[in-house]
């Protein structure tokens, strides 16, 4: 496409939106190195907020909680999501396909409140386990979508070939299907991992005593107005997300289409 007025306009609009997306995040990263407690005017370069951060044992334990929850939740959601993704590709399961869409399409608040009431009414103590159970549920949806999108490119005849060669259903699943959709599964798992680590709303309603996660700590820090440390922790999370997202897109470019 040759450069002319309208395509220039298009590029200008696109760049504006990119700036809108990135300037705020870059500001947060810059301010995490600013040597000032109250104001936001630039005082000088410092790494002290990172030191404060790593010395804060409560925040560190929240980070560990987040990592554990994300690992366990993405592990189980990968299993459930792979099953669901394959099932939805091969067969029609109307109820499953609409349940999968709930975390994507319903307000998160509704899911959070419903889960809170559910756990309370069945007398289930809120804590790590309730968070993990809730996270598995919404992560499963996203893994399913990732696996399903990967399945689109698979030639079904290889399963027939496998069956002709004497593989039973289970064998063809494990030996033929899984390896061929592995990139989708891994990308889905990475997606589940980040979604779980970043989730605030559902965790907010299902967390209990001593199971504070990183987003919950960040929320209370923001509410209390503890700004420099929030900048520092945000920077770490943004960089972490950057790595995981690039990894996921390398492994399975289809994920984003």
């Amino acid at each position: 496409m040759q450069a002319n007025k309208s395509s220039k306009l298009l590029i200008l609009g696109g760049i504006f939106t990119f700036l809108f997306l990135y300037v705020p995040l870059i500001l947060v990263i810059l301010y995490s190195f600013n040597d000032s407690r109250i104001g936001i005017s630039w005082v000088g370069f410092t790494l002290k907020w990172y030191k404060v951060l790593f010395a804060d044992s409560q925040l560190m334990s929240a980070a560990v909680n987040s990592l554990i929850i994300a690992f366990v939740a993405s592990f189980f959601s990968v299993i459930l999501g792979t099953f669901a993704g394959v099932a939805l590709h091969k067969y029609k399961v109307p109820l499953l396909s609409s349940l999968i869409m709930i975390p994507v399409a319903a307000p998160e608040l509704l899911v959070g409140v419903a889960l809170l009431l559910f756990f309370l009414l069945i007398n289930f103590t809120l804590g790590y386990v309730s968070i993990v159970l809730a996270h598995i549920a919404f992560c499963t949806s996203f893994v399913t979508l990732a696996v399903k999108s990967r399945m689109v490119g698979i030639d079904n005849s290889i399963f027939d070939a496998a069956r002709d060669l004497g593989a039973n259903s289970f064998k063809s699943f494990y030996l033929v299907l899984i390896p061929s959709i592995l990139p989708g599964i891994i990308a889905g798992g990475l997606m589940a991992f980040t979604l779980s680590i970043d989730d605030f709303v559902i965790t907010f309603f299902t967390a209990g005593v001593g199971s504070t996660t990183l987003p919950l700590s960040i929320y209370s820090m923001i509410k209390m107005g503890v700004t420099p440390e929030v900048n520092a922790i945000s920077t770490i999370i943004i960089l972490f997300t950057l790595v995981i997202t690039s990894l996921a897109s390398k492994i399975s470019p289809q994920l984003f289409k």
Partner: protein
Amino acid sequence: MIKLTEKRALSWPPLLYLILMFMVPMGLMLIIAFMEPGDYGGVKPLISHINGKLHLDLNLDSFILVFSSEFVWQLMVRSIIYSLVTTIICLILSYPLSLMIARSAKKYRDILLLLVIIPFWSCFLIRVYAWMIILGPDSGVTHIINSIISVLGFPPVNLLYSTFAVIICLVYVNLPFMILPLYANLEKHEMDLLDAGRDLGATRFQLFWKVTVPLSLPGVLVGSALVFIPCIGMFVVPELVGSNCSLMIGNLIKQQFLQGMNWPLGTVTSIVMTVSVLSISLIVGFIAKNSNGFKYASK
């Protein structure tokens, strides 16, 4: 027969789990909506003994309270307006970007797309917090805006803790939900169609307006739903950057569960919210499906 068992083996574990975690809790919500709030939080028992007789305690009190409270409607209407405005702004901001990515060379597309996704995958509290810095009372942006309007003779304004801040943050956290489906649609457009139009003498604007836009309507619709629906239930954004006059329905729901201890009221409000969202989405979807552009695009 083999097929059926494989179908069951694959679909039942996730199906059962999601029924347990999504359908059962939402079903419970429906029941709680008709129950009475307990003296100390929770709900009163469903069945009580009065004079030796079993008595089923279900009533419409919470529904009546919600429907007769002016402020609930105020919040609901405000939430819908905010979400609509957010959706429209997201659409305006996304369209050029999505089109730019879709029309750019293939080798750049993936990296550009990745750049859209990175903010979408990072914690949304951080994204709201970033705007708290930008709009804060002593940020550069606030100083510049206030010095401009003081020249014009207006008193200085507070950017943070305002409706303006709420809308900006809602747009910011939801923007990728619009860009991605829009891109997915625009990318599939056949360039042949545009070439044909050009050969027939159409101007660039005509091509855009008469070919690209109608073809992209399904993408616009999906994107709008993905922005509008989560927007309605937001409570963190108004809580952190809003004023008393920019609270949304989500704040009421959160308040009922975490401060007011009135579960039935919170539940009824959630139901009202969900029903409003669903009916708006259905109406918009219905209108769009019957419009000519959409019919053409889906062929």
